[in-house]
């Protein structure tokens, strides 16, 4: 039988994958993908806790996370397009201005 712990372990594994992606990748679009993975991991944890505690508040917060993710993508992709028009690349190392 699958318990709450299984879902929470799955959510933490997914969150770790996303976090490794954010730390490791140097491409800005990949950083956005990793952020989506982390938001989805949080959603899985919220839905599991909501289901096993018989409490709808978790699902509500998952909805608001989805809304935040949608607006983050809209604004972030606009900024990404501006950066690409200016620098011609999405590599994070190209954007560093401070040497050291």
């Amino acid at each position, binding site marked *: 039988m699958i318990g709450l712990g299984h879902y929470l372990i799955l959510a*933490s594994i997914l969150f770790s*994958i996303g976090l490794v992606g954010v*730390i490791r990748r140097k491409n800005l679009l990949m950083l956005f993908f990793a952020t*989506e*993975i982390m938001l989805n991991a949080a959603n899985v944890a919220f839905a599991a806790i909501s289901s096993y505690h018989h409490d709808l508040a978790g699902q*509500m917060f*998952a909805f608001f996370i989805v809304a935040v993710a949608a607006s*983050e993508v809209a*604004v972030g992709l606009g900024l990404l397009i501006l950066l690409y028009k200016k620098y011609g690349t999405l590599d994070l190392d190209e954007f560093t201005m401070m040497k050291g």
Partner: protein
Amino acid sequence: METFAFYFLSISIVALFAVTVWSRNILYSMTSLAAGMVLISGLFFILGADFLGVVQLIVYVGAVMALYAFGMMFFDATGVVKEKNAPAMTVFILGGLTALMLVVIFAAPSIANGAPAFYPPMAGANNPQAVGLVLFTKYLVPFEVAAIMLLVAMVAGIILAGKKMDRSLSKIKDAELEGGEAKDSK
């Protein structure tokens, strides 16, 4: 049956998201991310959160991934990304430890106190009905604020991505437009 579905879905999701993070090609990683989102909605259906699963399908797979797909038309995304990566082991250990620390920090209070259920689902109402009842009574103000936030994000996305939209293309004659294009390309 539920056990089989959970293990099948979770192993597939972890594999797909690992491909997303470690793939060198942006197109592969975007495709595997979209597939992982679809499978995560399957997890929501198992958990009885039907409405959340449908929202996940419509918003994430339908809107967010489509937005990425259209955004990629602005980038030269087909090539392999050249990156100078940090040593993988250090990053992996640091990422895992940070995630573990975050989980412990946020799980400790609820384990210690036992979380009381504020909004138990109503008897005799299925999941979308119960979600609607709670969302439009207890969470009405955050709902409206989220609507305003989405509006602001839409305006910001239009303004950021669409510079040069101040000139209406339909009011310019074709020859003039081509001349302007040629001038721009110099």
